[in-house]
């Protein structure tokens, strides 16, 4: 059956049961009703869907630029309509009528619940401890969850000048946890140690003795084109928690920049539903801004 048949008016079925494990049951018939997509794991559609599932049970999400924008939009349509979107531009409780092209898009402002000053957003909302999960992009994430968004190579004369911190090094200090979406899974993107630490893990912060330690748990989840890495211990290291369909554990570990530990319960990531892909392509990112 098609997504259209399941949802004849084309609207997203919100809060579908058991989305997280990739299956669902039609309440009326008791039969499994979810058609799964075969978009490849490295596609933006796949990554955004996996990222959206990470928002289950999270109330307030600080969304960055790029894939996170897709993920939070999809999450509100399929996981939990009450996920509250917070943006560093000051928007709180966005209700966008169209996909936001960036964190300062006018559609995030019109109809929002609050448009705060940046001081209130970073000071009260973020430092005040109201953000459950910060959703960040990154060029590199290392073994203990340090993020580099600044430079590749020596920062005095970098090979690549990356965008820099933006709000990232503020967010990592105060959001309860951080989810990172990486577009690559190789030793460059997942080095043992980042070239430059823009946004530190609690383990790295702790080495700065005598400092008031940040409240946030740092990076707990990294979504890559090969799998999902998790870091359950505040001061521990990232471990392979899942591999995407068609990816072997050896591929995932072999393409990390360190000896990536594999969890005993390592799982296979459920595929996106065709409906997720349809929503992303036909309703969310109709101009293919992020679905590149």
């Amino acid at each position, binding site marked *: 059956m098609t997504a259209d048949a399941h949802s004849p008016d084309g609207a997203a079925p919100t809060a579908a049961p058991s989305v997280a494990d990739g299956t669902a049951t039609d309440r009326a018939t008791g039969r499994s009703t979810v058609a799964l997509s075969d978009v490849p794991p490295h596609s933006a559609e796949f990554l955004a869907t996996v990222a959206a599932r990470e928002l289950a049970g999270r109330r307030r999400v600080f969304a960055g630029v790029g894939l996170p924008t897709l993920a939070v939009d999809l999450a509100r349509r399929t996981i939990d309509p*009450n996920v509250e979107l917070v943006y560093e531009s000051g928007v709180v409780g966005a209700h966008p*009528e*169209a996909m936001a092209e960036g964190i300062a898009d*006018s559609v995030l402002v019109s109809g929002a*619940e*609050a*448009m705060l000053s940046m001081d209130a957003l970073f*000071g*009260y909302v973020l430092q005040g401890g109201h953000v459950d999960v910060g959703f960040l992009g990154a060029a590199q994430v290392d073994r203990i969850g340090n993020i580099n968004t600044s430079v590749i190579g020596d920062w005095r004369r970098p090979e690549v000048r990356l965008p820099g911190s933006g709000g990232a090094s503020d967010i990592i200090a105060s959001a309860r946890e951080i989810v990172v979406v990486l577009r690559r899974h190789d030793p460059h993107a997942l080095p043992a140690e980042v070239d430059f630490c823009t946004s530190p893990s609690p383990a790295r912060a702790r080495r700065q003795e005598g400092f008031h330690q940040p*409240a946030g748990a740092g990076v707990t989840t990294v979504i890559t084109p090969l799998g999902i890495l998790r870091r359950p211990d505040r001061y521990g290291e990232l471990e392979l928690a899942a591999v995407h369909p068609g990816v072997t554990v050896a591929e995932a570990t072999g393409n990390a920049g360190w000896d990536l530990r594999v969890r005993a319960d390592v799982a296979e990531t459920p595929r996106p539903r065709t409906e997720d892909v349809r929503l992303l392509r036909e309703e969310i990112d109709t101009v293919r801004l992020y679905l590149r």
Partner: protein
Amino acid sequence: MTGSKVTGSKVTTLREAVAEHVRDGMTVALEGFGHLIPFAAGHEIIRQRRRDLTVCRMTPDILTDQLLVAGCVSRLVASFFASGSAGSLHEIRRRVERHDPAPLETEEYSHYGMYCRYEAGAKRLPFQPLLSYVGSDLPELNPRIRAVESPYGEGKVYVVPPLNPDLTIVHAQRADPEGNTQLWGITGAQAPAAYAASAVIVTVEEVVEPEVVRADPNRTLIPAHAVDVVVEVPGGSHPSYAQGCYDRDSAFYREWTPISRDREAALAWIDEWIHGTADHAAYLAKLGRPRWDGLRVAPAPSGSVSYGRRKG
């Protein structure tokens, strides 16, 4: 407040809000800088006979004098110990000057020092610098005001520590049922005091549809995620005022001075006007229609601006 809130309506009654959230011995901020003072909530605290509260208010005002008369307060954190335009608060003075009927512990700042305490509390900063107090006796009186050396070489500057009340109560013109709160006119320390607290009660002149709030998001100073309880209490600031809704009852401010000068008269006032009324609606009814009519203001519209909608 910290932590995630349940989605959905947070609207309840003032009686329930105070019963659930105000406990003896708590530190409670009641903010509103000469405007939107949460009198109705304070009166309900008196009705429910809470005790041993630490009250935080930049300008204690008549509300704190009444809470003191009623025996609810043992400690006061404030920056101005008088009534805005109408002179002394005599219950405060009796307590401080003569320990009559009991001493009152006070912790004292300048206005900006007190405001910066809320700011640091809301932002979870260990301290906030300000340019005040160099040469003043205030830091000697209040050891919480301390000095920090600038790491850029300009010498020392005074700082204040965060203030994180157990509960903050504010009054506003309107909120939606989830607690997105809009206020205009003098906005005082309401927003940082709310964000600094573990729990927040917002009383409003009017609970409005979410669409009303969302039509003008820049007016939301306290978003729903910072609010635990919303209570609709029309006239909830009397004898203070709500910009655009009703004016201050200046006659009452003048009347309070002789009442508070005589402790027996003040106790009698509390008995008659607070314990003698079931709730704020009854208090307003006792006040009478003619007096209320005298506080009405003529409309002065802000005018509407556009936020724009992207064309499909």
